[in-house]
């Protein structure tokens, strides 16, 4: 019985970790689509802390390239 509950706990943990991984992936995808990751990369690259000024600078830089992107019909 003891080993059975151990297996149950193990498989439960595995399932939980899979779920966490999937959830993290969905969040990363949404963050990429919604440019939050691009902002993080900008902060990292420019050595800036998150702030209004930093976000304004990010938008200024980013919008030039973003505005040139086609969007399909």
């Amino acid at each position: 019985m003891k080993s059975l509950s151990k297996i149950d706990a193990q498989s439960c943990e595995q399932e939980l970790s899979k779920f966490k991984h999937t959830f993290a992936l969905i969040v990363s995808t949404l963050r990429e689509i919604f440019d939050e990751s691009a902002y993080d990369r900008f902060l990292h690259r420019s050595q800036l802390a998150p702030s209004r000024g930093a976000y304004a600078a990010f938008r200024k830089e980013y919008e030039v390239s973003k505005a040139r992107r086609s969007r399909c019909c």
Partner: protein
Amino acid sequence: MSKTFRVVIWIAVAVLGALALATVALHRGEQINAMWLVVAAVCTYALGYRFYSKFIAAKILALDSQRATPAERLENGRDFVPTNKWVVFGHHFAAIAGPGPLVGPVLAAQFGYLPGTLWILTGAVFGGCVQDFVILLFSIRRDGKSLTEMARDEVGRVGGLVAYVAVISIIVILLGVCALVVVNALKASPWGTFTIAMTIPIALLMGFYLRTLRPGKVLETSALGFVLVMLAIWGGQWVSQTPSLAGWFTLSATSLAFLIIIYGFAASALPVWLLLAPRDYLSTFVKLGTIGLLSLGIIALRPSLHMPPLTRFIDGTGPVFAGNVFPFAFITIACGAISGFHALISSGTTPKLIRRETQARMVGYGAMMAESLVAIMAMIAACVLQPGIYFAINSPAGIVGQAPEVAAATITNWGFPISAAEMHALAQSIGEQTLYNRTGGAPAFAVGMAHIFSHSLGGQALMAIWYHFAIMFEALFILTVLDAGTRVGRFMLQDALGHVWKPLGRTSWYPSILTTSALIVGAWGYFLWQGVKDPLGGINSLWPLFGISNQLLATVAMCVATTIIIKMGKVRYSAVTLLPLLWLVAITFTASWHKIFDPNPRIGFLSHAAQLASGPAANARLIFNDRLDAVVTGTLIAMISLTLIESAWVWVRVLSGSTQPKLKESPFVATRFATEEQA
């Protein structure tokens, strides 16, 4: 998993898919359940992905897991960023999925559900997915170059120029027809117009929130915007029921067209952050959520299809648009089967994000399959409606008559019974005055979607809310396509005009911004105006024009792909792109011929112009429009013919050995990710 078990699983998928396809194709007489379409689609995609895309990846493209991608070699944290494959997949899907896969299948449903469904499945697996995959990979091997650049480098100068002109043309025609779809959905609809009008202050508020209160928290801001939009939908009902307010938002088609033209110009000339960026986020948020919700709704409800597999209109006499099932079903559904526009995305942002070359298969081929599934869902949404309702909504007044009783009698005479009282009750149940003559596909899709949603969630009481939710969803992201497309067109024009006079090429110089914005908006605004003034509803002439130009862009993409494959020394596999190319040539050239020269005035532009000219009250403007459409179609075909000739000339020279094939690929650099993963 053992090999035998895998073989058994794939045989089971193949048998199930064949059974579902046979049911969809051969079932006659009784209604079939929509799940047969879903099962047929999922099995077809699974087989296509597992076997066909793997064959292309291994035999033709020879995807190399050791080769560094531009995202790795040119990584700059801005444009070139190695990204997780699922994240790139989501990003790519969000960029390719627009209103096209929703509107095209709804319009093509006039032939019945069968032609459109078969074309969506075969077109995607053998055409669209292949195009997106190979163009993505070829762009990856060329530092993320665009389709236009690849056409110039690999085919020749004419190919490059034609690709450029085709892109500009498709943008202009696409924007004109998209705007027309919005106008037809919102005309005389105070509820819908109020909701869409409210998205402007909501977007401004989101922009303020995003810049000052919570900088960078886009997901949170979009969720907040979504809540506000839902409140606007709820408020729209109140506005539509309050006569003093309803008057303000009850607009004619011409007023709406005028407002959209002003909006397009402002969107192109104003700073992006002010309105467009927040709207873009809001639109993407709503789009992804609604597509997910629609799939769940179809699976939960498993509705029956009321539309027959084939209707009498396969003979070309359809009221939604005129023309035989061949070639018109195949140009009406572009996105969802094969869309040239995707080649721009596959050679745009996506190749700069791919971390490993081997991931191009999942992103390029896989994301197109997902879009194709969206097209299948749109087909289901249209076909769950009673055919009489479908035709009453989608037929222009010029065909069925203006009065409800006359329209209902005409449609009933076609064999699709409907009464004026039924249509009135339906309009009342969704909070509209009338549903007649709402051409363009969006309202029919919204009614179908509201039907599915209300039967799965909330019952009949929420039908009106769901309908206006669907209209808001479509109009919002069509307007996003409109403003983003106007900007892209403006930049392309500035790039070209910069060669004529340098200051015009400066993207931050205001006289240039205003001039090029006016030119682009004027061009698509003209098509919109033409559609609004067209007694046949505009869609009859403009949607085929859009379909032709989109498929012609796919023709250019397939020319580029075939040329590269031949230059790679893989001529024995060139049928993979050559056959879809020949099919595209067959449908676009046949459709263009009909649109220009067909003696039936409902199909041929020139015969329609001649009919108008010989009539008692000749309208010079309408005659000019017909002739203009004929010239535009003819010019596109002539240019694509030049690309085909230039491509064929390159193939002959390479195959005859008179020239050494030179591929303009970036040199091989080993990826560091392979060793990192091994470690």
